[in-house]
């Protein structure tokens, strides 16, 4: 065992230890029950007041395939995925070799002793742990060992990285407090791991956690759970959905919330309806039917579902029926990487369906925005009488993020232009598709009220809603829909802009890419002296801010997580051609959440500046490049 003795390793010293700036990767087998152990790990760091984030890189599989969980702790608040792994917990025999070989020198590795990983490298610090032996001692029931085995690595990591053991116990108690037997077993395993590490390893890791106070008042939540709370607060009444990763947890969370908070106390009856539809086509059909009849209705899906919803979305656009659709974006069609993240549905969703169609997109970048934009989407959809998409992604939707508590909505629900007796009197004459207010938005009537009825159709109707195949009726209608989209630009959230004096470079990003950009801009400034301004898009249609931002900079990098520069393509379609020569692209599309280093390197390369930190490509994945740029 001499080679695995940390005391003999070249970098085992306790003299210099990096504080609150490290990433931990746990490599396990899907279905092995590592979720609780990983949650305890991230939670205990969070409880110590250190900014953290967690990324679950999981396969499309119930059990047996490799899965990785990456936790990043960072005192500066950088919570994007970090490309480099500082500390590995290697539990999966299948991937352990590659997991170790791709680490950068100086990293630490806790591993299952029989895997004999220490032989692979001499520039890492290895901490072999006999998991089977330790778990057998603390868990007499062999059938339960699989479930508590992972808690042993939490214990070992707690000792090696100075993550407070009492915080781990506290986190465990929060997680398993209602199951005292399971709690006791897990605490036993946790302590066994800690004690073993303490007794065995002479030196601790080169990285350590130290209590700080950055998380006061904050909470941890997944984007899908946040969006579900948003739907609840928006007063949703009809939900129709079809299960699909990475979107299912949104509706599942929402169902739980509705059952708890939206049952009539007197009668025990529901003030909502949820249908698990036969497919995504039916899901959107139900939403359109419900919204047409006056309910606040939503569905949630991912790219494949969006494709299926194409025809109904077009009908919603032309018949002018509200709908709220969440797209938790993931990598491309069918099998392969359905459980990996991307921002690949931007272009197809903005123009979903046949004929001339454009749809408002909301672009949440944080769990708070998943919540806020969920609320806003219902108001927008009813105000504009059109389908509205909330473009989240797997990284945002299924991973845990830190957040301040969500603000309770300050505005009343906006139910839009629904005709009542008083308005009818004022208008004198009513036509379903008449632009009486010159904002492109007509007045609608709801079935079951005393308001005049109309017959709802797709494209072929005149202002009164009557069937028409006249060219001028069709064209007038399309032009009014264009005016409506212009109105939409005044209603959607404006971008967040950080203008830096003297910055010649502008960066445009959106959604979950934001966190990498925060860090990348600091890297560009600190490593290359490159000042950048930043515009974070929060919605489509674009507001005039975008054009002004491009005008104010010499070059503008549009950063996005897809191959085809989809947001840049939308910008090219909608903006003055004179501005377009300024646009450059930074594209990230390997299925992993975007990281700052990749963005920084790509921008520096295009700026002709030396890449200060020539990061080796990890895991054989390509980093962002200027594909598609000028």
């Amino acid at each position, binding site marked *: 065992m001499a080679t695995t003795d940390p005391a003999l390793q070249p970098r085992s010293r306790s003299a210099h230890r990096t504080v609150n700036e490290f990433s931990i990767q746990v490599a396990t087998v899907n279905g092995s029950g590592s979720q609780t152990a990983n949650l305890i790990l991230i939670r205990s760091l969070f409880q110590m007041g250190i900014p953290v984030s967690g990324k679950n890189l999981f396969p499309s599989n119930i059990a047996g395939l490799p899965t990785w969980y990456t936790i990043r702790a960072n005192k500066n608040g950088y919570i994007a995925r970090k490309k480099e792994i500082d500390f590995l917990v290697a539990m999966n025999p299948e991937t352990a070799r590659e997991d170790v070989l791709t680490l950068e020198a100086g990293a630490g590795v806790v591993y299952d002793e029989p895997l004999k990983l220490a032989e692979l490298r001499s520039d890492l610090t290895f901490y072999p742990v006999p998991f089977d032996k330790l778990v057998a001692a603390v868990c007499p029931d062999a059938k339960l060992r699989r479930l508590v085995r992972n808690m042993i690595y939490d214990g070992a990591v707690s000792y090696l990285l100075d993550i407070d053991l009492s915080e781990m116990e506290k986190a465990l108690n929060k997680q398993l407090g209602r199951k005292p037997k399971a709690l006791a077993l897990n605490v036993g395993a946790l302590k066994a791991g800690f004690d073993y590490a303490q007794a065995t390893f002479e030196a601790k890791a080169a990285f350590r956690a130290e209590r700080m106070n950055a998380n006061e008042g904050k909470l941890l939540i997944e984007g899908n759970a946040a969006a579900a709370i948003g739907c609840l607060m928006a*007063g949703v009444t009809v939900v129709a959905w079809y299960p699909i990763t990475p979107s299912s947890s949104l509706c599942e969370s929402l169902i739980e919330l509705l059952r708890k908070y939206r049952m009539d106390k007197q009668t025990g009856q529901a003030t909502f309806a949820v249908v698990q539809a036969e497919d995504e086509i039916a899901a959107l*059909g*139900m939403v359109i*039917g*419900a*919204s047409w009849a006056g309910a606040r209705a939503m569905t949630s899906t991912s790219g494949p579902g969006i494709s299926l919803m194409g025809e109904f979305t077009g009908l919603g656009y032309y018949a002018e029926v509200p709908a709220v659709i969440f797209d938790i974006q993931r990598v491309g069609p069918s099998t392969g990487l359905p459980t990996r993240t991307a921002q690949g549905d931007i272009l197809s969703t903005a123009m979903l369906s046949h004929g001339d169609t454009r749809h408002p997109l909301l672009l949440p970048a944080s769990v708070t925005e998943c919540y806020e934009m969920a609320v806003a989407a219902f108001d927008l959809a009813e105000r504009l009488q059109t389908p509205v998409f909330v473009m989240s992604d797997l990284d945002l939707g299924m991973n845990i993020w830190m957040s301040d508590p969500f603000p309770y909505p300050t505005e009343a629900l906006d139910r839009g232009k629904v005709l009542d007796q008083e308005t009818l009197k004022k208008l004198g004459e009513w036509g379903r598709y008449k632009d009486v207010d010159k904002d492109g938005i007509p007045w609608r009537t709801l*079935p079951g009220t005393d308001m005049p*009825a109309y017959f709802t159709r797709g494209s072929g109707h005149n202002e009164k809603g009557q069937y028409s195949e006249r060219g001028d009726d069709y064209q007038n209608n399309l032009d009014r829909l264009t005016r409506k989209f212009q109105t939409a630009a005044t209603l959607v959230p404006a971008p967040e802009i950080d203008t830096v004096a003297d910055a010649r470079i502008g960066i445009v990003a959106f959604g979950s890419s934001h966190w990498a950009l925060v860090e990348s801009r600091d890297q560009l400034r600190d490593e290359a002296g490159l000042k950048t301004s930043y515009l974070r898009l929060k919605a489509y249609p674009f507001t005039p801010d975008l054009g002004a931002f491009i005008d104010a900079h010499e070059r503008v990098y549009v950063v996005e997580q897809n191959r085809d520069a989809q947001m840049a393509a939308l910008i090219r379609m909608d903006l003055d051609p004179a501005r377009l020569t300024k646009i450059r692209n930074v594209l990230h599309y390997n299925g992993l959440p975007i990281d700052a280093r990749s963005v920084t390197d790509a921008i520096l390369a295009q700026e002709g500046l030396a890449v200060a930190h020539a990061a080796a490509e990890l895991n054989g994945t390509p980093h962002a490049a200027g594909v598609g740029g000028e």
Partner: protein
Amino acid sequence: MTTPAGSAPGKKLNRIGLEVSQYRGGKTTLCAGCGHNAISERIIEACFDLGVDAKRVLKLSGIGCSSKSPAYFLSQSHGFNSVHGRMPSVATGALLANRSMLAIGVSGDGDTGAIGIGQFVHLMRRNLPLVYIIEDNGCYGLTKGQFSPTADLGSTLKNGVVNDLPPIDTCALAIELGATLVARSFSGDKKQLSALLKAALSHKGTAMLDVLSPCVTFNDHEGSTKSYSYVKDHEEPLSDVSFVPYFEDIAIEHEEGTTREVVLHDGSRIVLHKLDRDYDPTDRSGAMRVLHETASRGEYATGLLYIDAAKRDFCSLMNLVDQPLSMLPASITRPPASVLDELMERQR
């Protein structure tokens, strides 16, 4: 669209004081003699006779000749001509939003049996309270007469092409999957269709009516099993159907053992007079057997095929509050700040 001021003297008024003209819709654009127009007429009559409040009706359809027809009846009702084969989902959403509405869905044999078969089967499973009418002519009229999935084996197109695939029996499918009122009728059988429509409009659950409705332009020739003359000659009524609405306390006189009665949830009665056989529409497997037997003889069993007046419909399974979801005020639908606080606390 507007109610005429005062009714012309001598005009017949229904129980809510309306003339039949107030149940009409726009002028039909379907071919003269199309069976679908006859079905629209029967819907108008049935709603008039029952005193249906048109403001409480939803008209829904998919795409095709059939699906245009909701524009030709009940112009005072909200209507939704949706997309091809997807009317069931729109109807489901609309009824969940406002379950106090009476919903009439009109589809065709292609709209139901081909592109819409997925939504059709799930609609039947759910037993949504909807009158679902298939205007069944065995062909695609709007695209010039191609076979649809209800075309019978061996039936021919105008140009002589023979259909070599078996038909989908939408009634058998509906019974199998859970629809609670299933009937087949013929657009040319005024009396039977009227009675069945009234029963369907009074039923609580999915009422699936497959109405053979000959396409006079593309499928009314020798060799077609959906032509007017073929259907007329091969219609085999299982019983003579009459309908007694709850508001008419009429005792129908009949000889002992010659009729069966089914009482609907609102107290209305479907009265079935025995013909050649004693058909029991509550016997599910018996209904399936009769459908198979008559089909194998090249005949159409018509009338009330199956009924279960007691099964819970989809909206009642949802355990919804009485007030339509679409009408709930924000004070009910938006939880107070204390709920958000509680949820936030849970995430700390």
